[in-house]
């Protein structure tokens, strides 16, 4: 135990480890905020579609040797989020097909471009990093940390300011629109923050595992809590705890950051399922 603490404090001497922890916690907060909305609005597939878009954009950015690829990936993802939301609203089937087309298309083109243009010798390694996050959180530069910091604060601020409106368009969009609220505007805001969260979370867990980071904390909280507020607060706490523990564990055990954090989330989900069953049984 003491040995582990010593080892940790040794690690925390390094600035990049401290950066990684701060950014990781903020990203975990942001991604969990929208979980309930995404799941209940049937947007979770938009989330995974967008993460493929982000993968394609990252691959293109890597092939173009951009110094700061977030500046390219972010606008592309936001535009796709808005497009997907638009098509999704018209008719159900067409929306699904559009998402599948955009996400699989960008995935394929991204891989193709990386293969053709990549300068790096370790292509498989690079792709693995983009897909699973691997060690990327520990290699963040100072600008990336600041950018992540600002973006996550923006996401949190927008969520808090629009909390009641997001509740209303999630619970019953028709009612919100019918009674004179700007439901379309709120949906647009939702799309933009979803895109922000996806791009942010790519740093922590990689493109393939983002959906897990968004959906698991909300699903865990929904096993036990019954009000929107309680579920939101609980998923933030669960997500932050899983991210911190997962990152510490990955530092100590040398496991990949992303998959360790997601594994922690899966574990908590199972525990919450059991807790939910027990409380329900105790009541009846």
């Amino acid at each position: 135990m003491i040995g582990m603490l010593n080892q940790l404090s040794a690690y925390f001497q390094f600035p990049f480890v401290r950066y990684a922890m701060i950014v990781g916690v903020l990203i975990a907060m942001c991604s969990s905020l929208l979980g309930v909305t995404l799941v209940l609005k049937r947007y979770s597939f938009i989330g995974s579609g967008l993460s493929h878009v982000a993968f394609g954009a990252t691959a293109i950015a890597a092939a173009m040797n951009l110094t700061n690829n977030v500046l390219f990936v972010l606008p592309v993802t936001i535009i796709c989020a808005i497009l997907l939301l638009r098509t999704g609203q018209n008719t159900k089937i067409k929306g699904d097909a559009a998402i599948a087309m955009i996400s699989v298309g960008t995935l394929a083109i991204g891989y193709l471009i990386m293969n053709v243009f990549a300068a790096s010798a370790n292509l498989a390694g690079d792709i693995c990093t983009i897909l699973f996050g691997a060690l990327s959180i520990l290699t963040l530069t100072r600008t990336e940390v600041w950018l992540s910091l600002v973006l996550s604060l923006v996401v949190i601020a927008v969520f808090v300011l629009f909390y009641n409106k997001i509740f209303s368009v999630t619970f019953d969009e028709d009612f919100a629109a019918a009674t004179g609220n700007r439901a379309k505007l709120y949906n647009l805001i939702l799309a933009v923050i979803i895109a922000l969260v996806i791009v942010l979370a790519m740093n922590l867990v990689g493109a393939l595992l983002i959906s897990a980071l968004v959906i698991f904390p909300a699903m865990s909280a929904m096993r036990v809590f019954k009000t929107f507020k309680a579920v939101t607060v609980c998923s933030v706490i669960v997500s932050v705890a899983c991210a911190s523990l997962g990152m510490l564990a990955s530092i100590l055990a040398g496991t990949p950051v992303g998959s360790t954090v997601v594994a922690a989330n899966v574990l908590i989900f199972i525990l919450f399922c059991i807790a939910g069953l027990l409380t329900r049984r105790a009541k009846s």
Partner: protein
Amino acid sequence: MPQLSCTDLTLGYEGKPVISNINFDVNAGDYLCIVGENGSGKSTLMKSILRLIPPLSGQITAGSGLAANEIGYMPQQTAAQKDFPASVREVVRSGTLNRIGFRPFYSTCEKHAADANMKRLGISHLAGRCYRELSGGQQQRALLARALCATQKILLLDEPASGLDPNASSEMYELIKGLNDSGITIIMISHDIEASVKYASHILHIGSQSSLFFGSISDYRESDAGRIYAAQQGGTA
């Protein structure tokens, strides 16, 4: 000037008409029941009045002093709401959102309005309960309380008594009648022809062209549409 008037409306989806030739006026304080078979386009008409679906042709005009944020709406239930984690209080309060504009949070005024409407519908004791764990009748009341929070002028109700037992549905109709007596215009979709004829002031019957009808209750009783429909539904209009 009527609060709401529809002229030569044709409604439908993606260019395909579902109903056409709809003409009617609603004056302040009216109680209009919309009746017709399943799939005849009642919900479609209501959604068009609410501007959720654009009409294929014709016009829907809101009279003076009826702004979009002065309309209350109670929908037929959707699937998504069935597993939504929300307390009754959260649901009812969301009805007041159309008056808070760009303010991010509810003020005490909106909270009081929500409390008052829950009390009016006798669900104050359920305020902290989870919406999805309520009975059908309790859920309908919560949705009606939310609709009331959104308006003081006009309420549009899509089958407010569907799925309720005879007692609960007559209670629901009494509640709605009470609201109408306090001056709120009611536009309600219903399959209960007996209750419609008992409480409403006007009937709009939609269906095939020959059975289209709009008029007051006494006219409806005399009309062909009314007699045929009543006979089919086993009512005593």
